[in-house]
């Protein structure tokens, strides 16, 4: 059974046409995540990286996504609007095939955490510092289907139902959830 539920989706809109290549996003991300906060700057530690190839007029901000233990079997190479992008250009993975999205000294993977902090920020830091509006932020509420519960819980409930019968189990649950 699934039930509709509201959930907040955090969206960073990336308009690469507006990017002026300034790297402010990289700078502030790395400063924000330094310990203590802002104590050092190092774009190599940033969770956003601007892929720049000025003579090809390429400027694409890319956010760090999941870590992957193994590189892809093949490679993608895009051409868009006459511009040829390097292999893996748009990929967000912290991947053994390249050195972006890894801590420079330890090699540990980096991942964008949307600047999670307490108190939470109005907007992620990279967005705040991108005065060119290449990065903008929006929050959207979405009807999100609750994920079907699987695994341990399913198995446990099934065991209880077998023992007490489904009706008794549901009665007990509705009492408890009041």
């Amino acid at each position, binding site marked *: 059974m699934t039930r509709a539920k509201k959930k907040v989706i955090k969206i960073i809109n990336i308009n690469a046409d507006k990017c*002026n*290549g*300034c*790297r*402010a996003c990289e*700078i*502030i991300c790395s*400063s924000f995540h*330094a310990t*203590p*906060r*802002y*104590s*050092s*700057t*190092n*774009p*190599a*530690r940033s969770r956003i990286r601007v892929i*720049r*190839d*000025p*003579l*090809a*007029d390429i*400027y694409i901000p890319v956010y760090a996504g999941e870590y992957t233990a193994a590189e892809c079997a093949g490679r993608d190479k895009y051409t868009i609007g*006459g*511009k040829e992008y*390097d292999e893996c250009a748009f990929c967000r993975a912290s991947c053994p095939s390249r050195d972006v999205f890894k801590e*420079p000294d330890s090699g540990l993977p980096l991942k964008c955490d949307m600047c999670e902090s307490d108190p939470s920020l109005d907007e992620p830091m990279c967005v705040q*510092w991108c*005065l*060119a509006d290449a990065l903008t932020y929006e929050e959207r509420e979405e009807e999100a289907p609750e994920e079907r519960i699987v695994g341990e819980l399913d198995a446990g409930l099934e065991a209880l139902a077998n023992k007490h019968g489904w009706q008794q189990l549901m009665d007990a649950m509705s009492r408890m959830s009041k």
Partner: protein
Amino acid sequence: MRYAETGFNLEVDLTRGNIERVPTDPRLTELHLGGLGTNARLFWDRVPPEVQPFSPDNLLVFGTGILVGTPAPGTNRTIVSCISPQTRLFGFSMMGGFWGPELKHAGYDKVIIRGKSPELVYLWIKDDKVELRDASHLRGLGTLESAEVIRQELDEPHAAVASIGLAGENRVFFASIEQGRSSASRLGLGAVMGDKKLKAIAVRGSGDINIARPAEYMEICNEALRYIVHREKNPIEGVMPILRGLGSPQEMAIHDEKWHTENFAWGNARVRRKGFWTKEISEQWTNTMETMRTRLLSCHNCPMKCGAAISVDTRLCSYMMKCFSKLTYTMGAFSDLEFGLRIAQKATEHGVDAFSAPQTMAFALELLEAGILTEQDMPGMPLDNEGRFYWLLDRIVRREGIGDILADGTYWAARAIGKGAEEYAHNNIKKTEQLPLKLGMLNPMYYLMYSTGEKVNITQIEGNFPQAPFPTREEREEFVKDWVHVPDDRFKKWFVDWELRGKNSIPHYPPIDATCEIVNWQEKLHYIDDCTGMCAGLSSFPYKPPFHIHNLPRLISAGTGLDLDEDSLTHLTRRNRDLVRANNLRRGMTRKDEEPPADHWKRRFPELETRLKDEYYKFKGWNNDGVPTRESLLELDLEFVAKDFMERGILRDGQDPPADSEASKASSEGSES
């Protein structure tokens, strides 16, 4: 731990191929901060006045400002210094872009180059790994072409590369060092790099830059960003379009060129073309820019987008342009904007200064017209102006035929050509070509700035004080309302009282004492920027910038951990300013060299000018020859300069030498009367 700076320099001896990572003395940071300040100290300590520009003992120093690579917007400047082949003085030029921050992240504040390499090489710096690599395959390649080849062969697409082109390799006196989005163009630094057979320096770094008091530092940075947004929404009214906003003059974004095309002089800085900017021209040039400009571009960590990718023919970006280089070729050749943008692509690849190169070419064509040069000097030169400019550029960067003479710039070329050619090298200060401005009435502030600026470039000393009064008192009162940038309220009054005509107008207004203060204030801001590596476009150059004398001491202190307030930062800046001057005085610069071009203004006032210079020298703590007095040198902890000056007879017995410079020359030769 060292804050903001890395605490290490890279010493490269090209003669022996030796590379060393050398810790710097924290005491020098306290005395001179960084950038230009510590560069000037290096030259004082290591480059005696006998060293010629093309001697292996000349240093070529790439010195980042102390705040470069920190989160403060606009902190990306590298101050490149050497003894200039053009002025034979201590030359320095700033480049923005991305090179400086990469060097800091690689772990170095400066790269100090000495000696000469036997073969053409380039330097590759990647964090701790530094090596000299063969560059024979890059010989003759353009600056951007070389950078591309280097990035590819190193498989380092994001390495920042500063490179010379053919002009630098052939020691053209106005050769630049190009770095993609930016360049160090003035005073022939590229020629010295070429003389050392160093084609390029590529750098990529992945280390931290530390901040002493992070929370305080970020507060000032965020405040500055908010102010930039506010200032962009509220441009200054009543001034020409390029001066309304922040940043370097917004030449790439703005289409209205009425002011430049009608007020600056065309050709060899000769012809004012009133009424040039018609609707037709405006439409044509707007169309050119809209078609050829692909994207507006910023430097490292700056929102101002003062540069642009320019597309010539098929490439989306053939090169990157900024500032007034937009018009220098166009106006030099009496042509149109498309020609200017096209030839600038070639000129950027060859690596020449966009002020000096077109002026030198226009100078050559004037000499031809005057019969001082002849057709025989220019075999095969096309007949049309545009063709001639391309032809001359090619001869100059190759040093072929007449190009070999012209490659030394108008001052030296005129002397080599003789036959009255000197008259045509009319737009120089300290042997260097200036902006092509020819005006009517002497402006006392500009008189002093042109005369005494040791960067030999007006844009590197002018700044926060409006270039002209606004027509009405109401407008001026409005302007000063949120003018928090001034050192104190007297500056507001001087501006409010400044009139276009009458008693309170130039040349006799502002009064001499006010003129000294205003000039000094503007220059001081530039010298601070050149030590911090802050771009002038967010500080010393535009009206009402985010950074100024009241917040810079806090910013520098929070970043570096030094304890500076307005007074101590002012004191430190005076020290650096006088040390730059000391380098030049030791190399023979005199009061006589401190003059604007004779034809800069139609109406000159010799007596007033003398008084202005006398008073300004006094104000600066200099004697009547422009030499810092022993007293003021001691006050600035520059006793080693005082001692040297005494030994050389530049200062004598703590006494000012006689005001008359002929007499002082005679006395230094020992014929005291």
